[in-house]
């Protein structure tokens, strides 16, 4: 059966969260994370800080599928970019405050994710990656053809950033960052809730042993579709904030390279770690920003090399490796005190 092909990525069995009760450091880490979040635009250029958070949530949405459901989506650019365009169109034509527009974009992503998910979950493993990639490319072509709506190669330019007439947020990207960050945090919270819910446990079961999950009476395909739609909604949220932040949506957002880049961010952060996505995004976005500002042109050479290296040598990712080291240390200490 095809179930045999379902991705068995080498993630540790579900201990999904640093916030679980078993982690004594959970409040310290949560507090530390929030401090970094607040201070980030002081350290780096605020739009870049916003990019990090957007890509972080985007990677978390991919991890929700890859790490917790065992599905590698190679077409998530469809939801990120689809929402970027939809958000931009809503903001341009209706003049609503941008959180509303972003919400509209995320809902649009979930709407297109349903048929794509419905078709794609019929194949598992590597086929799922190929099918989602093909559907994303189809959306790319549609966006390219619908020039009247999307502006074709020029993209959607000058997306307004209206926010209840508060000019500080509308004009200054430093203050905009905090509103955007709040929206991203909502997305991260949703992902965390999903993973740590009974629903999330079923997803893990589907990942680890689909045949058994089915035997226990769970409709495996339906759970996969639901996870896919939720993930698309999160990717859409991230893409919408991204479009508002740049006040621009382009075909680049829908390209297959974007789908690949977010998988890179996810793997670099650590598959099945959830929080790793934010760390991976921090590294990749800062690196790209640094390379672009230093005038280096072959960014693909660098990202490609990173990809090859982490897949060959560093499969647990930054977060996964850190967690394993800490856990091993804790285990060793416990064993020593017992002796």
């Amino acid at each position, binding site marked *: 059966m*095809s179930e045999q092909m379902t991705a068995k990525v080498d993630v540790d069995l579900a201990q999904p969260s640093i916030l679980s009760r078993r982690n004594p450091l959970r409040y310290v880490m949560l507090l530390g994370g929030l401090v970094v979040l607040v201070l980030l635009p002081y350290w780096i250029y605020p739009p870049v800080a916003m990019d990090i958070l957007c890509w972080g949530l985007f990677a978390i949405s991919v991890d929700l599928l890859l790490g917790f459901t065992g599905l590698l989506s190679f077409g998530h650019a469809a939801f990120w970019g689809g929402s970027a365009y939809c958000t931009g169109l809503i903001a341009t034509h209706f003049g609503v405050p941008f959180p509303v527009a972003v919400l509209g974009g995320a809902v649009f992503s979930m709407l297109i994710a349903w048929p794509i998910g419905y078709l794609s979950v019929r194949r598992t493993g590597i*086929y799922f990656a190929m099918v989602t990639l093909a559907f994303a*490319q189809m959306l790319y072509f*549609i966006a390219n053809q619908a020039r009247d709506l999307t502006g074709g190669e020029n993209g959607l330019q000058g997306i307004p950033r209206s926010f209840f007439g508060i000019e500080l947020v509308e004009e200054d990207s430093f203050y905009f960052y905090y509103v955007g960050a709040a929206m991203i945090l909502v997305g991260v919270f949703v992902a965390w809730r999903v993973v740590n819910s009974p629903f999330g446990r079923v997803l893990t079961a589907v990942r680890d042993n689909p045949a058994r999950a089915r035997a226990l009476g769970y409709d495996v395909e339906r759970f996969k579709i639901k996870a896919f739609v939720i993930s698309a909604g999160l990717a859409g949220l991230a893409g919408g904030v991204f479009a508002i932040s740049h006040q621009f949506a382009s075909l680049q957002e829908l390209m297959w390279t974007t789908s690949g880049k977010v998988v890179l961010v996810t793997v670099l952060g650590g598959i099945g770690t959830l929080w790793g996505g934010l760390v991976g995004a921090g590294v990749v976005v800062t690196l790209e920003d640094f390379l672009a500002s230093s005038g280096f042109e*072959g960014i693909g050479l660098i990202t490609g090399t990173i990809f090859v290296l982490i897949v060959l040598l560093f499969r647990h990712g930054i977060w996964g490796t850190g967690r394993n080291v800490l856990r091993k240390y804790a285990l060793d200490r416990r064993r020593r005190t017992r002796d």
Partner: protein
Amino acid sequence: MSEFIQYTLQGLAAGGFYALSALGLAVIFGVLGVVNFSHGACYMLGAVISAVLLAELHVGFWVALLVVPVLMFGFGVLMERLLVRWLLALDPLYNFLLTFGLTLILVEAVKQRYGVSGLPYQVPAGLGGQVSIGSVNLSVYAIFACLFSLVVCAGVGLLLTKTRIGMIVRASTEAPERTRALGINVGRFVTPVFGFGIALAGLAGVLAAPTRAITAEMGSNFIIILFAVVVIGGLGSILGAVVAGFLVGLVEAYGIAYAPTYAQIVIFVLMALVVLVRPSGLFGREEVA
């Protein structure tokens, strides 16, 4: 009517490129269980190498048709030995990601070295011009490309079904454990098969060089359509890859001719239909997948 025949021929010629490459993809998947994302980049390399051979060493099309697959075979062997090999024991997703990274590197490297504008290449002497059959004008090169890829596909088919090596390769595709138990060293065939699949992609690149724009990005869309081809045909099936390759080429050509706005979307609609009606592909068997 004459136009229809022309489009059909163009479709079959384009389908030949798809069929050859999909064949390589299917053979590699069959024996190694690896979906090679860099297949499109290898197709691009095949075309770029033949253009560079022509420009710098004045090596013509016919020689390139022989030399480039050999070079690409070497490239494939290196790739398998140095990179792909280490991830074979793991989930196929990792090799998919590895070859994706490799694609980024290859495309960017070619872009940096040869720029973004197309490299020049002419239709080889003797294959230029058109033939008229009745009222229909057909490009000689398109006929050649179509026939040539058919012959190569048939040749590979014969190789797989009629020779001892082919039998071993098929056996290790379908039941590696049992093949090993019969005293055959399956591992010995892994590297050459990988190289062979890459060589086929390179060959498709050489064939495409005279008619398509030779750029670093020429393989990017190609690989995604190739994935659609193997999903339609069923990745486990050699015959499926070839038939679906020609089918997609035809669909694309008719799309460009009769509904240019939707031309590129039609292929994916076809794929969606196949996934809906026959998820394992037209010729696929679920066990192999």
